């Protein structure tokens, strides 16, 4: 059955709530409205307003109370309405959600999932198209999950909700309506496993989230040039499956990290630095990074100049091959 990522996520929430009474879903407008992207559609109708409910407009409040609910024994799955509105919750995420288990010597576990619709490409006004992953990846204590396709969205959200560790769950919103043939429920690899989504020999594209599809398209297009690109979908940024990446690069000799976020100090830097460390003797070219420019997210009419696309990926592949 063709399932959109939005449907996959909605089904994952539904199935998780069905499977475990302790799962509660809350945030701004997630109740009657079903969320501005309808990811929580009909959950309130099905599970009642005690298990899926709207909150006052306060993101720190949402994450902070989720910590308290998790301490009690619930498993809150909270929605940040948009990427840019996660920032008010930054302190609760960084100082408490990520660190409470460690602080408590393991006596307090916080099985909280913070869902964040991420990234651009939907023609939105400012603050609605951010790629905030690098704000979280350097905070130990969080697991950062970033699916790129509907099946992973379903399976990894289920895993995230079952995770005893807190998870920041990044949903590539421009792919909410992308489809995949699926028979839900499905299982997939646990959090922390990357996947070679397309084998190839010319170079490795390491990517995640919205750029998985872009990279697969680039790989298709690259065939015209006679390039056979391998695409590694990280799926999880923390913990990072370095082995899968390094294995691939060891085979191809060339790596490009592709993400939607700005390149400077983006997560791609970590991947590039690691590949540089671990695959030094295999590299025939430097690890190149493909991403957006190092500027605030642009106005809607200019965003396509900013976002990495198939052409930018292929340009970089060409550059890599020139070494």
């Amino acid at each position, binding site marked *: 059955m063709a399932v959109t990522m939005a449907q996959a996520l909605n089904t994952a929430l539904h199935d998780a709530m069905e499977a475990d009474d302790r799962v509660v879903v809350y945030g*701004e*407008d997630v*109740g*009657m*409205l*079903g969320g*501005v992207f309808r990811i929580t559609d009909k959950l309130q109708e099905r599970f009642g307003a005690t298990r899926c409910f*709207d*909150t*006052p*407009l*306060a993101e*720190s*409040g949402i994450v902070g109370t989720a910590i308290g609910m998790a301490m009690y024994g619930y498993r809150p799955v909270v929605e940040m309405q948009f990427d*840019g*509105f996660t*920032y*008010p919750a930054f302190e609760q995420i960084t100082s408490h959600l990520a660190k409470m288990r460690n602080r408590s010597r393991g006596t307090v576990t916080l099985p909280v999932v913070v869902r964040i619709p991420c990234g651009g490409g939907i*023609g*939105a*006004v*400012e*603050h*609605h198209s951010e790629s905030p992953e690098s704000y979280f990846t350097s905070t130990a204590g969080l697991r950062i999950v970033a699916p790129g396709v509907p099946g992973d969205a379903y399976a990894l959200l289920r895993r995230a909700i079952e995770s005893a560790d807190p998870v920041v769950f990044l949903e590539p919103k421009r792919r909410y309506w992308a489809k995949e043939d699926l028979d839900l429920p499905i299982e997939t690899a646990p959090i922390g496993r990357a996947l070679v989504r397309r084998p190839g020999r010319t170079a490795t594209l390491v990517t995640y989230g919205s750029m998985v599809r872009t990279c697969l398209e680039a790989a298709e297009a690259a065939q015209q040039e006679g390039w056979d690109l391998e695409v590694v979908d990280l799926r999880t940024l923390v913990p990072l499956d370095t082995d899968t990446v390094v294995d691939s690069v060891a085979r191809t000799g060339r790596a490009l990290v592709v993400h939607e976020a700005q390149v*400077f100090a983006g997560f791609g830097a970590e991947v590039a630095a690691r590949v540089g460390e671990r695959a030094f003797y295999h590299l025939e070219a430097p690890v190149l990074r493909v991403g957006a*420019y*190092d*500027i*605030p997210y*642009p*106005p*809607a*009419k*200019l*965003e396509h*100049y*900013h976002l990495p696309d198939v*052409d*930018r990926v292929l*340009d970089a592949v060409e550059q890599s091959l020139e070494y």
Partner: protein
Amino acid sequence: MTTAGAVAGDPRALLPPDAPVRLLDDEGGLHEADAFPLDLKDADLVALYRFMVLARRVDRQAINLQRQGQLGVYASLLGQEAAQVGPAYALGDPDWVFPSYREMGAALVRGIDPAAILHMFRGTWLAGHDPYDANFALLSIPIGTQALHAAGFAMAAKLDGAGLVAMSFFGDGATSEGDTHEALNFAAVFDAPCVFWVQNNQYAISVPLSLQTRAPTIAHKAVGYGMPGYRCDGNDVLATYAVARRAVDRARRGGGPSLVEAVTYRMEAHTTADDPSRYRTETELGEWRAKDPIARYETFLRREGLLDDALSEEVEQEARELVARVRGEIYDAPHGDPLELFEHVYVEPGPHYDEQRRQLRRELDGAGEA
């Protein structure tokens, strides 16, 4: 026991009066209130009408532009015209407005070109006007954040001895954000000449006021900051004007900040992307339609002999012209130069930006070739 933080004066004086201030009754009859004197000349009374009508017409045009694919999204003020025009009209030229994204009415009063506002919604650029032109800050999207800018601006004005007032607009939902709280508190502690103007339009997207707060009214929130809280009928432009005027005068005289709740209703969807049928009833909407701020005020003006069909048509004509001009400016407005993306990030950008500019230029050239 006298302690720091003990009761100073009678705290009951801080409580807002039970009923919202209302100067116009349902039939457009005027009932002046001693505490909120009206100092408006006939020309002012007509100006209020004119701005409300213009705001409504531009708003409708904006919605149409969005439907035609010309704007990415738009946040309508339908029903909130009086709640915006009154307070904006109570400000003087040197005063400043710190708006949210829904303040087309306030913008018009301040002399901002509505097309400038719509450029933001179109996505031509992230904002469309120069705040210093009309002392109107950029529309702020992250809820509540602009209240702090207003507080800081007012702190600065006070420090500088300027007799100006900063007015921050935000919604009922925004009162829940930590930033709004901090703004009210900073303004109070620093006696900043600041007016916090809350349009309580009953909803934050789909979330009704009853899920937003348990305060008796939003005006009651003022008590916790030791500032006056006022409440007014947000669909009565004379009330919004008079109450705002009082708060503004007080701030200007050095009396410090205040919080005003204008009780109103958003008659349109939250934005053009929203589907209000999911969370509110036609009945409720109908009740509020009957309280239309423009209709009520029109009755009053006609009664007073300040408005006749000729004047009404004149205003409509002005509106038509404005709307046509705005439409003309927005429709198919060019997208701007992508290389401008690097222009404004820094006054002193690093060398890095040159590389990026070159890369984008190469991409543009490459795309041009293809």
